[in-house]
Each structure stands twice: as structure tokens, then as C-alpha cells.
């Protein structure tokens, strides 16, 4: 699969005066994991809903699988987990999954088999005959996750798939997402948790205020961001580092976490200079490492100011 799974061409979407997505263009190639990153209110969910054909773009167009059809006509090839989870509360779990399978055009008997297999895989097969409303939120989310993947779509679109899950369940979902990508299928997921995106994604796009900020493979994005970065871990006497960290000739940007910090060196400054200065001041160090910039650092640097002023009350 070399053709683009999704091609967004200069798409704009406005909601009563507010522009949620502004001339956004990007291409999600077939295969691999694509992360759509952005602060709250950046337009991530709107973009995904535009891709899903739930919303119509005001301008521009979206092409799926290089096909002239919209996502509903292609829905057999697409799996979707919306940000706002929703299931029929009174339905039994197994019946619900069968129904979701049927709406994707799978036959009833086949849907039943697949649903049972998925419930097994997610470890909720004991709950197959229980009503959805009897399940915990996390379990409901797993069921909906299964519903989105039941028909083995070649493009899986997940809106904030890991939010609200405990680490164990998040791990289960992560493994499934990775497995899907390993089969050559495409996963597009949105998140604002950078660490996750950094570890999982082949490609990312960061959007803010409905506009593209950064777009490309993770390695490329880091390279483009440039600069030399140092990760510090403090043990004691951190206060003595204050002056050094404030020295703009040495350090361009500080991301202070308290017990640790991530720094971007100023142009022409040398990490050795920094280490020498810190040792001279008697700052207790647990870690000193020259690193690639984290997505988090890039994200903060690129949209930090924007994020703080992101319009409130608008769904991401």
C-alpha cells in the first residue's frame, strides 16, 4: 500500500463564526501509525470528523484511498472510534458488537464469530451476555474499540484512544494498534500525550488553532526542529543552577520539571560548557545527557504560546 490512505486538501471548516480547521492540508500514507497531535481545541476531532464524512468541509476536499467515494461508501474499509464514546446502554455486549459489524456490511454469523474472538482477545468474554450499562467505563471503551476493528478495516481512525484507560488496558490497546500497523494497515490516532505519540508513531502532524504546525516522520520533525538538547536530572542544590539556566548565551530554552529539565542549547553553545558550569557551581547531577529533542519539547516550543490562548469551550 503506497497510495495515500487519506489526502486532505486545503480544508476549511467553520462553526458559527469560529474557524475550527483552517486550510489544512496533509497526507496520511498507507501503512504505519500516524499521530495527529495538538492542544485541546486545536481541531483534531473536527479534522477526524471531516475525514469520516460526519462533517462536510466548507472549503477544500478530502480523498480516501484515492477513491471518488466518501467515507460512508467506503465504511467497510474504515474503522472509527469517536472521541465521545457511545454504545446502546441496554443492549447485550455480544449483540451490540454483532450489530456494529452488520452496519459495516458483515454477515450476521460472521459478525458473531468475530465479536466473540475480539471479546476473548480483550479479556471481556465473560461479559458477552451482560448489558453494556453493567460494564465499567474502561470495559465499555474496550467493547467500542472492538466494534471499530471488527470488520478488519485497512484504515483505523481512533480519536483519543487511550484517554480514560488504566495503564494495563492502555497497554492492551497499544499492543493491538501496533499489531494492526504491523499487518500493513494504517492507523490514524489523535492524542495530546506526546510521550505516547513519540513512542508509537511513524509520522506525526501537530496542529494548533486548526492550522498545520509540523508534519512529517518523527525523525524528520526532530531533525527539522534542530538544535542540541540536553536532559538534566538533579539530586541536590538545584537552586545553584538557576543563574546558569537563565544564561541566554548558553541556553536557548528551558523546560523545567523540577527534579529534571530539558534544555535547548543556544546556537554556538557547547554542552561541555554547560556541564563544566554546573559542576563548578556544585549542582548535584543524577543525569546529564545530550539528547534528541522530545516531541514534547517540540510541541511546547511550537504551540506553547498558542496552546495557552487556545479558544476555550471548543471541542478539540
Amino acid at each position: 500500500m503506497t497510495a495515500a490512505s487519506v489526502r486532505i486538501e486545503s480544508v476549511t471548516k467553520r462553526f458559527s463564526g469560529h474557524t475550527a480547521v483552517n486550510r489544512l492540508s496533509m497526507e496520511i500514507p498507507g501503512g504505519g501509525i500516524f499521530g495527529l497531535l495538538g492542544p485541546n481545541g486545536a481541531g483534531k476531532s473536527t479534522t477526524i470528523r471531516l475525514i469520516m464524512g460526519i462533517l462536510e468541509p466548507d472549503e477544500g476536499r478530502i480523498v480516501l484511498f484515492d477513491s471518488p467515494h466518501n467515507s460512508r461508501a467506503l465504511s467497510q474499509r474504515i474503522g472509527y472510534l469517536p472521541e465521545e464514546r457511545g454504545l446502546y446502554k441496554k443492549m447485550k455486549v455480544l449483540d451490540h458488537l454483532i450489530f456494529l459489524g452488520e452496519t459495516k456490511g458483515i454477515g450476521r454469523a460472521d459478525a458473531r464469530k468475530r465479536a466473540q474472538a475480539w471479546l476473548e482477545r480483550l479479556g471481556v468474554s465473560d461479559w458477552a451476555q451482560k448489558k453494556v450499562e453493567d460494564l465499567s467505563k474502561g470495559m465499555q471503551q474496550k467493547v467500542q474499540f472492538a466494534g471499530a476493528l471488527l470488520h478488519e478495516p485497512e484504515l483505523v481512525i481512533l480519536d483519543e484512544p487511550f484517554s480514560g484507560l488504566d495503564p494495563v488496558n492502555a497497554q492492551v490497546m497499544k499492543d493491538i494498534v501496533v499489531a494492526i500497523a504491523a499487518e500493513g494497515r494504517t492507523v490514524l490516532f489523535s492524542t495530546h500525550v506526546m510521550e505516547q505519540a513519540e513512542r508509537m508513531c511513524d509520522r506525526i502532524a501537530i496542529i494548533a488553532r486548526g492550522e498545520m504546525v509540523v508534519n512529517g516522520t518523527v525523525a524528520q520533525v526532530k531533525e527539522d526542529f534542530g538544535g542540541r538538547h540536553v536532559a538534566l536530572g538533579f539530586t541536590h542544590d538545584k537552586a545553584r543552577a538557576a543563574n546558569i539556566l537563565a544564561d541566554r548565551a548558553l541556553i536557548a530554552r528551558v523546560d523545567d520539571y523540577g527534579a529534571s529539565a530539558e534544555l535547548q542549547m543556544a546556537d554556538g553553545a557547547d554542552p561541555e560548557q554547560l556541564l563544566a558550569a554546573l559542576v563548578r557551581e556544585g549542582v548535584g547531577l543524577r543525569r546529564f545527557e545530550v539528547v534528541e529533542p522530545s516531541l514534547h519539547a517540540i510541541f511546547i516550543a511550537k504551540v506553547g504560546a498558542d496552546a495557552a490562548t487556545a479558544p476555550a469551550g471548543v471541542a478539540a
Partner: protein
Amino acid sequence: MKKIIAVVRREFVERVRTKAFVISTVLLPVFMVAMVLLPALMMSGGDRTSRIALVDASGTNLGQAVSRTLAAEKLGHGGDAKARYTVRVFPAASDQLTAVRDDLIGKTGFSINKEKDGWDGVLVLTDTTLANGKLTYYGSNVGSLEAMTKLQRAVSTALAGVRLAKSGVDAALVKQAMSPADLDTTKVTDGKLTGQSGAESYLIALFMSFILYFAIIIYGQQTMTSVIEEKTSRIMEVLTSSLTPFQMLLGKVLGVGSAGLAQMAIWGGSVFVLSSQRTPLAGFFGMSADAAQSFPIPSMPAGLLVVLLAYFALGFLLYGALYAAIGAMCNTIQETQQYAVFVTMPIMVGFFAVFALIKDPTGTLGVTMSYIPFFAPFTMPVRWSLTSVPPLQLALSLVLMVVVLLACVWLAARIYRTGILMYGKKPSWGELWRWIRA
């Protein structure tokens, strides 16, 4: 198509499985039977022998004649039926009349068996009764129109007999001449006897219009509620990614409608079975076959059942689609009330038109109403049950119904398409118009 069937199946199965469905399916016939049976049982409770004291101050044999006539009245038709009245004559001179009367009235109107020699009523014949027909009845049961009519009829008969006898007419001839007319009614459809009495047609019509009214309102509002539930639970978003709004709307309305149709079929079918098995059934309750015929289970001809179900189906699709559109426009049940009124109103008008129709089944109003698609689901089955409807009229009504139904489904689908994903404020009329035109 496969997807629509999946939606229909889900709506149907999930609805039929609920306790509410099972309970209402069983309970409504029980309720209806109780509504029909209770008054019948209560009236039969009133069918006990009345004890009447007859104060005769006429000075003629009028008292004897009235007493004889009353004593001959029976409570039922059979030979072993109990007498309707037991009568004792108290002859009185005109000047003692008031005293005798007041004494008897003093013993009247106590509950049964409380006062041994008490009376249910005192009938007073004066010396002018024979001439001007005026007499007075004092009793505890004067409120019962039926009892008073019967009493009046009996006394009239006696009075006429005495008058004729006085004019020299032979007593036997008088008796023959005075035997009353007994009117039995039977409905005719298409030149054939249906075996239904007038009372039965009326009962069926009433029963059906109630069922149609409740079923359409209840299932229509269920459609509306379930759209709102899908909106609030946000499952709508998953559904819209794989189903077209038209598929969702049609599947939902058909699914809810078929649950309603199943319920109606169970109800109608049970009436059909009850009416065709009325004789063994009456025997089961220890009634004679004769009593079974007067047992108030209306008979349900197969043709009527078909017309009823057809109009329910069309009517429900029409109103269900409109209710679904309202559900799509709103976010909460409370919000729907403002719009639902526009759908509930025609349903109510249709329902009340049934009463006009029952009064005059061949009148212009009823006939006109049975052509108007919004009212036809209520009026046409009732008209069908009351009179014979020409096939051409039925066909015309059905065609009009289908045309308007399609128009409404189209309109509802336009609103549905935009409405299901709108959260927040309700649309204004202007916005609604834009949704439809878009």
C-alpha cells in the same frame, strides 16, 4: 438494504425484549376486556327483582291491571328468568292516599335485606290516572334511566289495556295488540349479513380507535425518544460513519413500527380468536350459549383486521417519521414537547373525528376525514367497521396515504440528516427550513 435490515432487527428485538412491551401486550387486552365487562357485570347486578308497593286510589280495577302487567315482566329472555317486579297492591281511598303513601315511603329505599318489609319503590295511582295518564313513582332507583323506561312502558301497557277494555274491546285482543315490537339490529356489508349487531359495530369501532390512537402516540413517541437517546449516548457518531441518515431513519421507524404491529397483531388476533370461540368460551365461564351471544366480545372479521393493520402500518410510518425528525431536532425530551405538539395535534383530531364518524358513519365529515392522510389511519378502519366502504374509496384513501407518507419521510430524512449531529441549541424555524432545502 442489508444494513437497513440490521437496524430494523435491532430496533425490533431490543424493543420486544423489554418488560414494558411484554406487560403492555398482556395488560391492554385485560384492561379492554375489563372496560367492556365491568359495566355489563354492574348492570347485571342491577337486574334483581324490585319490590314495588302499588298504592291504588283509582277506584277502578286499574291497580289490579298494572299489578298483573308488572308481575308478568321478566328479567331475561329464557323461560326460567326471574320476575322483574314483585308487586303488592295497597287500595286506598282518595282522602287516605297521602297517609298510606307516606307510610310506605317511610319503608322505602333501604339497602337490600336491611328492612324486611321494605320497598324499592312506591307507585301511586290516583283517581285521575286513568283519564290523564299521570301517576307518580317514589323510589331509590329513579336515577336509572333503563329501569324507569321499563317501568313506564309496563304501566303504559296496563293503562292502555284498561282504557281499551273500558271501551269494550276484548281482553285477548288487547293483549295481542299490545305485544311490543322487539328490534334486533344486524349489520349488512356488500349485500351480505355480517352477523354483527349495531352494538357490536360500535364497540369494535371504539375499541379500534382507542388502540390506534394509543399505539401511534406511544410508538411514535418511542421513536422520538430513541433518536434522542442515540444523540445523547453519542452512538450516533458511530452509526453515521457507516449508515446513511435515510437508512437510519427508515430502519428505526420500520423497527419500532414492526414492534407496534406485532403488538397490534397480538391484540387484534386475540379479539379475533375470542370472538370466533365465543360459545365455548362462554361455556367455560358457565354461561349458556344464548348468553354468549349477548356476551360483549365484538366479532372481528378478517377483512377488518387487514384494514386495521394496513392503516396502522401506514399511519405509524407517517407519524413515526415525523416524530423521529423531531427527535433529531432536539437534545432532551423536554425540548421535544414544543415541536411534538404539531404532530400530536393531527393525531388527536383524527381520534376525535372517530366520534363524529360513529354518530354518522356515512356523513360528509367522516367520509372527508377518511381521505385526509393524517386522519385516515383513525377514521378509515372505523368507517370500514361501521358501514361498507366502496373499494374505490378505500383505494383512493390508501393512495393518498402513501403519497403523503413518502413526502413526510423525505421531509423527515432531510431534517434527520442535519439534526442528528447537532448538539446544543434547538434550531429556529428558519434554520429548519435551511436544513430541509440544503
